[in-house]
């Protein structure tokens, strides 16, 4: 009857907000740090 919402791959016990790492509606897990585009200092854009 309904889904076990704890199995949707979201860290619902997190004290902080979850939206900054939300992987999207079809992602089975939150974003990893390497998945999140970040406004790093332009000097870091080595490539």
């Amino acid at each position, binding site marked *: 009857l309904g889904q076990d919402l704890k199995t949707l791959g979201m860290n619902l016990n997190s004290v902080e907000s979850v939206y900054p790492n939300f*992987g999207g509606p079809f992602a089975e*897990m939150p974003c990893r*740090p*390497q998945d999140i585009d*970040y406004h*790093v200092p332009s*000097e*870091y854009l080595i490539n």
Partner: protein
Amino acid sequence: PLGPAPLQREHQFQLQMLEAAYYHLPHPSDSEKLRAYLPRNPYPLPHYYPQQTLIPHSDTVEFFQRLATESLFFVFYYMEGTKAQYLAAKALKKQSWRFHTKYMMWFQRHEEPKVINEEFEQGTYIYFDYEKWGQRKKEGFTFEYKYLE
């Protein structure tokens, strides 16, 4: 007690289009800037590999500070433009590495510099050479502060 309601024609069309779209699903990388290295590339791994364990709090500087220095350099150079690169840089700075914006390499004092003034400091440094992928020692190096991030 409502029971099923027959789908109206427009809903049948919508369902048909949704079902077709199901075969062209968005990919996580569609919402991310192009990755020069390490693009997301789903790969069938053996089931016994850790599939989804995201280490809790792995997006904190504290977590990155526990990584080996070489790992931080890997993250910094191979995950450019992401939060991981930003966290790796912060962790490196906490270990007294300094980023040289001209050579685009990380330097660490090997000993107290022989000369320090307003413009620069001079002495022996360890630096990480990302082309040769290894730490090197450099004596008599002048670190001009205008290149200090």
